[in-house]
């Protein structure tokens, strides 16, 4: 074996150094990095969305760099403060992103052409309170409702319930039969109880936007009937949730349903893709039942995800090109079909192939849409109304706190820092 001479080594390393230095000069591509919490969507971005964008926009490369959902907010804040965040920022709805905009980390998109494709309601989750400076391009919303096992319903001869009484009659029938757990939900993770429970059935009681805005204006309080009654209904859920629901986690609930052991699953539409993949029985969906037949129905059609631009990005032009593409109907159609259950927010209608997703989105025609009551404005202080609602909903279903006590506690917590503007 011969060893390289000193000269050879020197020239080799010199070549290496020159090569490294030359590399950026040769590549004229701009690379955009997307910060996101949707690590589940990595393959959709890499295989569908990014190739479609790069094919239409040569010279711009896009890297999707997600982190874990529970760590995203903290990690993103740290990166923005340190100046190391990506060019494009996936936006949480409402105050978390508004805080980023107010701190100067997100750029205003008021003059982005693509923003014209969205209604004010769609933009409401990523806008300043005066509506003048939208700062993220809306991507999708999620709708709440109930997914049910069609085969189980057929086997037991059950009809889809439209009213609350029918709903509990169905639950009683399933319980009596005994071959299925009536409803799959646990309380140990708390957010299931609040999000799939309270925010799912609640809009029918507080009348959607009407009640939500009245709460923000201070014309209603959380101890009013419209806000306590959903807790009374939730308190009845406990007996239908199966043995040991107090220690049942969110993945437990998903598995119970997809394994065919539970008949009804209080759901968010984001479950559709996973359920279609895992369940080997037919599934259908119904909206939260109304109190009396013929009542106006309200659904939670919650703005969930958007994308904005890091104010400090050196590649602002390329980032704006990308954001305009996100606002296009091409993106809306690709995204809604790649991720059934995430519904596009753009004004142009999007064709969807998934039947379950069509079920969910069809409710928009008959029912009034609203967003989750605790997300806008009311969760800006401490104690945080959304987080306290998790706790209260779980307590009420566990039977450790009465609906009235829970509502009174939430109201006094809210009052301690929130004064309605007028």
């Amino acid at each position: 074996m011969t060893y390289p001479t000193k000269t050879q080594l020197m020239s080799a390393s010199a070549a290496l150094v020159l090569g490294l230095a030359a590399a950026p000069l040769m590549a004229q591509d701009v690379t955009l990095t997307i910060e996101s919490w949707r690590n589940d969507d990595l393959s959709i971005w890499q295989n569908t969305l990014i190739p479609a964008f790069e094919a239409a926009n040569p010279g711009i490369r896009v890297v999707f760099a997600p982190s874990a959902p529970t760590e995203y907010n903290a990690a993103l804040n740290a990166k923005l403060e340190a100046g190391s965040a990506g060019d494009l920022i996936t936006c949480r709805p409402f105050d978390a992103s508004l805080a980023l905009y107010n701190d100067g980390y997100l750029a205003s998109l008021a003059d982005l052409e693509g923003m014209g494709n969205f209604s004010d309601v769609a933009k409401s989750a990523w806008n300043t309170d005066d509506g003048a400076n939208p700062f993220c391009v809306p991507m999708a919303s999620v709708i709440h409702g109930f997914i049910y096992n069609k085969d189980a319903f057929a086997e037991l001869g059950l009809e889809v319930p439209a009213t609350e009484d029918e709903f509990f009659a169905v639950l009683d029938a399933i319980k009596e039969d005994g071959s299925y757990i009536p409803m799959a939900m646990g309380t140990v993770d708390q957010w299931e109880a609040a999000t799939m429970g309270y925010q799912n059935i609640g809009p029918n009681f507080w009348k959607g936007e009407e009640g939500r805005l009245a709460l923000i204006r201070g014309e209603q309080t959380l101890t009013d009937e419209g806000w306590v009654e959903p807790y009374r209904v939730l308190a009845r859920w406990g007996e239908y949730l199966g043995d040991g629901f107090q220690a049942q986690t969110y993945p437990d609930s998903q598995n119970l349903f997809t394994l065919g052991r539970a008949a009804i699953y209080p759901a968010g539409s984001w479950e559709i893709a996973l359920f279609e993949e895992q369940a080997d029985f037919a599934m259908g969906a119904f909206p939260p039942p109304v109190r009396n037949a013929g009542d106006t129905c309200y659904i939670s059609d919650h703005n969930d995800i958007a994308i904005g631009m890091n104010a400090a990005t050196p590649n602002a032009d390329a980032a704006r090109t990308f954001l305009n593409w996100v606002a296009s109907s091409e993106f809306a159609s690709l995204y809604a079909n790649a991720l059934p259950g995430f519904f596009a927010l753009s004004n142009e209608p999007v064709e969807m192939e998934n039947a379950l997703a069509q079920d969910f989105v069809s409710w928009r025609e008959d029912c009034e849409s609203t967003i989750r009551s605790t997300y806008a404005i009311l969760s800006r202080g401490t104690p945080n109304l959304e987080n306290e609602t998790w706790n209260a909903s779980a307590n009420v279903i566990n039977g450790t706190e009465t609906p009235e006590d829970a509502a009174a506690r939430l109201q006094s917590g809210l009052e301690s820092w929130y004064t309605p503007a007028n």
Partner: protein
Amino acid sequence: MTAMDPGPKRARRWHIAVFLAPAVLVYTAIMIFPLFATLFQSLFTRVEGQQVFVGLRNFTTLFGDPRWSASFWNALWNNTWFFIVHMLVQNPIGILLAAILSNPRLRFRGFYRTAIFIPTILSFVIVGFVWKLILSPLWGIAPSMLDMVGLRFLFGPWLGQETTALTTLALISVWQFVGIPMMLIYAALLSIPDEVIEAAECDGITGWSQFWKIQLPLVLPTIGIISILTFVGNFNAFDLVYVSQGAQAGPNYGTDLLGTFLYRTFFGFQLQLGDPNMGATIASVMFFIILIGVSIYLFLIQTRLRRYQF
């Protein structure tokens, strides 16, 4: 040579400073500086993006505001209970196991020692996840094992009930860490000279009375060290609760320790934005609690412990 004697000039011993420097610098950078930075941060608050000095106001909020103080005292009591369970269960079992293991007639001693110690080296994430599965009312083996011996009625969703969740977590932690007191006591028992034991036997002290009268007093300083390690470890605990119950430390904050309370406050959670200044305040209070506990041990207990020189 007396102090008055000028004597030959002694060379400055620079090598001492040089050898100490790396440790001192690293320790200062990663321990001392952050500690003081945290204490300092707790004296400020953020007003319109600026850090403003507010003196002890964060502390008066923490102890004076009904909500903050309720959360704090809840977390402190939970933490104290967590510590009590460790002191009452983990350490006595550790001592007992060590006493059994040090019995020369016991077979497979090495195996038992290793098997009991292994959970200690597992990650919290694994321990939390495995126990969550074992205790799951849906797929766990705990309900079916109880069923086999006809005790199914004793089973409950222990991690989901406010009354049982914290104790269950404390016992899981005991399971994980019982190897530490066992090993330390075991080492201390082995270091007792055979002559002492033989002398005791000559005086007719054998079996359990030998353990109580001879061995236990000799390992008392080690038990003291174990107690203080348990105290510091428990009041810094966070991982197990975070892994198995989440940062909200449910049900109904029933498993909220000072560590999870600090995490939620400092980093924020879900829609709650982080508040580094209040977080630093809680961290400072935790530091003082541990400081006081350790001081009590050092000045009141350790000085009174009798040590035996062999």
